[in-house]
């Protein structure tokens, strides 16, 4: 548990830096490592009128050189290692990596000769956003967590529903 706690610490400090530096203007570069094209659709919709990413100070940028946050989808196909590494290295620090969708979190594809099965295998992931696909709302919440503007709720969730209770709050 200790190393992971150390990692958690580092991640928290990084997020504080990010929040301090980019809290109001953060630029996002997406990276598709083998998604089924649905996560991409949801990410595109983030900029659509219904969700309007920009109002929260997030912006998409095609150039990793200008990006502070890497939004990674897909199970991290091995054939994509070079591109993933290059994209990550091309970003100036401090930088955040957000793994997006069940594939990226090791859900759909097991680790095998095709895929690493988990973005964390290749890139240092700071925020994990579950969902297949994660809806734009989930993505917004994830981005909020990434810049430390929203509190994450998962530690509190148990996914235990009492016989009468429902909704998952323990």
């Amino acid at each position, binding site marked *: 548990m200790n190393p992971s706690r150390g990692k958690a610490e580092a991640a928290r400090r990084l997020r504080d830096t990010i929040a301090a530096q980019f809290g109001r203007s953060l630029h996002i570069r997406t990276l598709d490592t083998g998604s089924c094209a649905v996560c991409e659709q949801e990410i595109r919709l983030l900029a659509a009128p219904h969700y309007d990413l920009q109002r929260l100070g997030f912006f998409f940028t095609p*150039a*990793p*050189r200008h990006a502070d946050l890497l939004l990674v989808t897909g199970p991290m196909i091995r054939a*994509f290692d*070079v*591109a*993933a590494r*290059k*994209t990550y*290295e*091309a970003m100036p*620090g401090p930088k955040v990596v957000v793994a997006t969708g069940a594939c990226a979190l090791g859900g759909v594809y097991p680790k095998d000769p095709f895929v690493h099965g988990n973005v964390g295998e290749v890139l240092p992931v700071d925020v994990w956003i579950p969902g297949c696909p994660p809806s734009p709302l989930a993505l917004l919440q994830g981005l909020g967590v990434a810049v430390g503007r929203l509190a994450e709720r998962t530690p509190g969730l148990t996914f235990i529903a009492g016989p009468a209770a429902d909704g998952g709050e323990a």
Partner: protein
Amino acid sequence: MNPLDILYGAGGAWLAAAVTGLLAGSWRPGLRACCGLSALAGAAATGAGGWSLVYGDTRVVAPGPATITGGPLQLQMTSLAGVFVALLGIVAVAIALYVPRYHEPSRGTGVYLAACNLALLACLAVLAAGGMVTFLVSWETMSLACYLIILRHPRSGETARGAFWFLALSEIGFLLVVAAFVIVSAKTHATELDVIAARGHLVPGGWRAAAYLLALTGFGFKAGLVPLHVWLPEAHPVAPADGSAFLSGVVVKLGTYGIALFAFRLVPAAGSWPGLVTMGAGAVSAAIGILYALRERDIKRFLAYSTIENTGIIVTAFGAAMVFHAYRLSALSAFLLIAGLYHVANHGCYKTLLFLEAGVVEHATGTRDMDRLGGLVHRLPRSTVIAFVGTLGIAALPPLNGFVSEWLIFQGLFQGFRTGSHLTAILIVLAAATLGLTGGLAIYAFVRGFGIPYLGMPRTPKAAAAREPGQPVAGPALLAVACAALAVGAPVMLGALSRTAHTVTGTSLGPLLLPGKLTVIPAHTNFSAFSPTYLTVFLVAACAVPALIYLAGRPRAASVSVPVWDGGMVSFRPRMQYSAMTFSAPTRVTFDALYRPSVSVRRASDDDPAGRSGPVHYEAQVTPVFDRYLYRPVIRAVEWLADAIRPMQSGDVNLYLLYVFLVILLAYLLGAV
């Protein structure tokens, strides 16, 4: 002691070098000795040229040995020729330094060097000719020697073809030049150039114009005025590098010398229109030359077309000078003459340099095709630096010399309004505009001509395997120094040239040109002014100061350096670079009407219905307009004529006797009349 004595020395040395080369054959020390002599002579010629530039004409008609024509060999050293002689000398030295590493010693090399030195001697004689016979004889000698130079490697049909183009057009030009000389000497009853010049006013206007136009055309063949230029792109690639350097650096210049000789010394035109014609021809040559240069992927063809452009610029300057002369604007006329001569010197230096470097590239990689080169900066660093100097010069970018002369020419042309005649002013401004377009395209062309072969990644294994050791360096380097000197030392050069202009046109604008020591004023105050020297100093400082500051202050923040963002590709490949032809594709589209390109996209599997399973091959060929629509018909006509008169060649002796008899009879009758 006068320049001529030095020239005698130089000529003798070249003669000796020629003989040495002939005897040396493939004997290395002999060849080195030959080159040494040649270089010595070159140095001497440079000195003589410089002398006559500084101290004006030495009008001694030296009674030399009898020539084949029986007349005395008349020599003299004019300061108009001075700049050409100096250029000839420098080029000779550079080539002499270049040859030993470029040509492997062999029997052919000896003969070739002999031809080279003979050609140098002939050029010297042309420039120092005091009489028309001397001039013509040495002119023809020069042409024949150059023909031999081009035929260095006569195996390939390409070579023979290029050499033939050169010879054929030279001979046509020669006939016209002879005609021009015959007219002037007949009208002035003199053969000495000085005398002709002195009695120039005796020539009636019509004859004068005719003589001038004949000379313009005749020398235009040599100078490569469009459409008389076709031999340059044919002959330059097939000649050895130093040979093409010599052709472009000197021989072509002699064409412009001839034009200047007639325009300013022998028969200064009465009206303004000969000048306008000259100017127009020059402007058109400049524009068309650079436009065709942009379509070439063979470095030497590219440079040949750029030579056409530059002689175009020179001739434009001369033409404008004539126009101003006709309008009694002697100051401007002299100014433009100076500018033109300056450009002669500049182009002679950097074009020779570039051709020599092209030779180095071909030597090192075995190809002249830009699209097969690339990345040479890593393989041939020294050559790259030298070539870069030459490129800056020819692209007319400060602080190099090309910028100085072109600036002067523009300043002169912009003052066309002073002629007072609206039409003339408009024409002159049009010429200026054309030169402006040319200048822009020239920068474009030489960004391409330097960037594609020298920068980027090697496009072929051969280019990747290029090696610098053993490649000639001294010769080009000398020329690079000369280019820099011509830029920084512009005031000195201009001072000397203004004296030349004084002796040629009789107007002295020393103070008008150089009020201060280092500032240049285009003939008229209150127009513009600049100082090449200060500019150079400033530019160097502008680059150096920030560099020093950067070096002094180490970067504070910790920085990481990562490879350039390439979209996450596995690796860049040479095929992903701009190629020479794609780089100039925009001009191909813009000047469609001129190029008439024919585009063809081929796939190895176009017959294969599945398609796209083969390499894509894209070609856009430019229609050789002049070759197809001007020369082909002429050639066809000549061939037809030959067929027509063949029957005369029956082979019957009696018939031939009859011909002889008829000719004699005709001559007799003519004599009787």
